[in-house]
């Protein structure tokens, strides 16, 4: 609750026991024009603009069951408040999984993942939650329950409302139930790591990976200030970056891919892959979750061929930054940090963002959003979300039809701060 109140202007948190109660709460809120802030596991409350309009929190904590899990159909239907850890535990019992990396899986919920579209290293091999949401139930801004999609893995009937909800930050509806496609859990997994001394060498390696005979599920690039709790020894001082390449599959497949990648890297030694090694069993799982746990302050998307340039620019513009790129997917996360922290950090962050970082990303044709800001940062919508995108008018029109009074998560997303 303290965490919630830090980020959201709520006087109380309502915890409906079922969907009907959630709908009732929303109907009442609509009548009294009260803002409603949906809350899942509370792990991503810092994302977006800081809302100011007082209202109530609406928590999915008691909507946390598994509705059905026909394992042979590779689908699962769950209530939105189920945590990712609980979901994965249940899926694992049938040798299934949801291959989406989520930070703090013991707290983060399925509904929250859908609303915020969080992802991690394995995005390269598996996509995001967008590619897994088959259907949902939700309550709109007038307290009306609606569904979208279905329970089957392939469905062309109706508009793709499940995708519309992904990443909508709770502004179209309070999600109560989600049907997901799941996958067979791979038998085995490995990560191969190397150090690189020059950024030119990094681009050579990444371009090489795009032509590789192997099929990585993750291509992670680490640069800048090392993050704490790293599960493997630090890079030697001469390296500018570290590259980690992850594989999933049967044991035979993974073994073959690891051997093949080593071969490709060793014959291309000129490209600069130094101290190649395969992470040990002891390091492996910790490394996957350590990589998935990094959220950062900034989330940047570019085309994959622009990743190295932007990583280099970020390292130069923010000397204390920790940088992690899901390089195969064109995603860069930056943890902003000043070598000499001070009370003025919030202002410095805002200034950096406006004057240096956003322009650098724009020059590379990319997008940038703020996932979290240091305390004291006074951010406008254009700081957090950038300038309005193409189609913004349609987005506003959609929002106003699903939530005519603008009570769902007001002030957090691109729809302004009424």
């Amino acid at each position: 609750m303290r965490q919630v109140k830090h980020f959201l202007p709520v006087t109380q948190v309502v915890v409906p026991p079922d969907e009907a109660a959630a709908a009732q709460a929303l109907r009442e809120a609509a009548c009294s024009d009260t803002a409603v802030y949906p809350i899942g596991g509370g792990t991503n409350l810092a994302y977006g603009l800081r809302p100011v309009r007082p209202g109530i929190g609406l928590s999915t904590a008691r909507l946390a069951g598994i509705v059905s899990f026909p394992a042979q159909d590779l689908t699962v239907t769950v209530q939105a408040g189920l945590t990712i850890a609980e979901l994965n535990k249940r899926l694992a019992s049938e040798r299934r999984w949801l291959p989406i990396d989520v930070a703090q899986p013991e707290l983060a919920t399925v509904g929250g993942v859908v609303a915020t579209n969080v992802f991690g290293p394995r995005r390269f091999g598996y996509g995001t939650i967008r590619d897994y949401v088959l259907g949902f139930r939700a309550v709109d801004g007038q307290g009306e329950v609606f569904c979208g999609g279905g329970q089957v893995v392939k469905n062309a009937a109706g508009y793709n409302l499940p995708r519309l909800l992904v990443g909508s930050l709770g502004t179209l509806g309070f999600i109560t139930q989600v049907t997901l496609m799941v996958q067979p859990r791979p038998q085995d997994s490995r990560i191969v790591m190397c150090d690189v001394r020059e950024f030119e060498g990094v681009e050579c390696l990444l371009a090489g990976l795009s032509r590789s005979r192997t099929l990585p599920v993750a291509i992670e690039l680490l640069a800048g200030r090392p993050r704490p709790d790293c599960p493997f020894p630090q890079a030697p001082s001469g390296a500018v970056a570290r590259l980690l390449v992850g594989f999933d599959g049967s044991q035979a497949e993974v073994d073959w891919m690891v051997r093949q990648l080593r071969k490709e890297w060793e014959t291309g030694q000129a490209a600069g892959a130094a101290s190649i090694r395969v992470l040990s069993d002891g390091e492996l799982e910790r490394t996957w979750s350590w990589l998935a746990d990094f959220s950062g302050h900034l989330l940047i998307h570019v085309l994959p061929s622009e990743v190295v340039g932007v990583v280099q620019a970020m390292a130069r513009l923010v000397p204390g930054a920790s940088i992690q790129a899901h390089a195969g997917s064109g995603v860069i996360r930056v943890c902003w940090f000043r070598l000499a922290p001070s009370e003025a950090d919030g202002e410095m962050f805002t200034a950096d963002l406006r004057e240096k970082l956003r322009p650098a990303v724009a020059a590379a044709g990319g997008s940038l959003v703020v996932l979290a800001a240091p305390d004291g940062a006074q951010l406008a919508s254009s700081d957090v979300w950038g300038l309005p995108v193409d189609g913004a008018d349609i987005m506003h029109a959609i929002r106003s039809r699903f939530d005519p009074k603008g009570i769902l998560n007001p002030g957090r997303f691109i729809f302004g701060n009424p």
Partner: protein
Amino acid sequence: MRALRAAVGRENVLSASSELAVYECDAFTIQRQRPAAVVFPRSTAQVAAVLGVCRRFECPVVARGAGTGLAGGALPVPGGILLSLTRMNHILDVRLRDAMAVVEPGVLNLDLTRALAGSGYHFAPDPSSQGAATIGGNVATNAGGPHTLKYGVTVNHVLGLEAVLGDGLVVQLGPVENPAGLDLLGLLCGSEGTLAVLTKIWVRLTPDPLEWRTMRAVFETAEDATQAVSRIIAEGIIPAAMELMDQGILAAVEEAFHGGFPLDAGAVLVIELDGPAAGVDEDQRRVMEICRQGRAREVLHARSPAERELLWKCRKLAVGAVGRLSPSYMIQDGVVPRTRLPHILGRIAEIGRRHGVRIVNVAHAGDGNIHPILLFDERDRGQVQRALAAGRELLEECIACGGGITAEHGVGTEKVTLMEKLFGGADLEAMRRVRQSFDPAWRLNPGKKLLPGAKGPEKCGK
């Protein structure tokens, strides 16, 4: 008409009655409607100009690719303009480093695949109509194909879209993702031309598999075959494709292509695995074992690329071969949870018997996506009516099984009245909100995908 000619040039407008006849239906031939005119824009600006004209004259407009759609999505509307995108057919860019190609909507699916041959990449969606279908049409219907089992449907392979809205405004969504907004790109995929007209598509390219292992398993009954499908998935193996052909269609296929299929078999599965040899060899062994345990009479694997090609030719052209069985046919598209396949195939046979309609089946069995093919003679109104009734009933059965009325062909005009069987009133209303946010006047492809509610279209400006 003069405004249209001014918008795209005289040579890009058809309005003579004889010329329009070709465009009065797509591959759903049961309904026909002659458009007022057909226009062939050659650029985004021309599409925008045409939509501007349609807006000025309050004239409905239907976008059309190659007209291979099976649900009447490109059926013209009375007094409306048909906007053919076939002359916007250039591959604009291929960027292998970013695993991306940029195409105009009229590029044929297979032409992109051919252009990429040897590059190490391909465009994964491979509907059976890929030799004729356009990528714009693939996006508009969110087309699938045999390999969607492993690789997903079209929406999973679209990185960006340029589209013209009903008011003539051009928007670009992607190809670089931007979390600062709603996923309009995801909405446009599969929207069947009811939200906007696509003018440029950034597609994701997929690395070519290192190896293929393609098998065919022959079963005494369709039920045994579908049980094997469930077992394979339950074992945690996701083949690249898992296709079923039943006895009815095997006869036609065999006569047409001489694939060596036994004519007395209940069903044949074509199963393809792909990936590095280290993985597919082991999976192949397991798949063959599961099929044998599941009472397969015979399990063979293609020993050469030529044998693999023959198997795929038989499967992909199977529907065309149906012409040997019947003067007319209608291919249905339904979907059920995979484990309900044995049930639905049994019900389809029963429905066919009851309506006196012969039904043969192909299916993307791994996805639970069935394609019953209803045979009839178009010249006999009674037969047509019986086939339509049987088709409708089997889709209602799919709904009853927890499935849906279309997996990859779209709703079009054919299934638009079934939407209310599948969705509740509030769900349809939610979709109408989307429709009205894009196109308040319902001018784009009206009567397809979704019908206006009792309240009718919202008035503009409201």
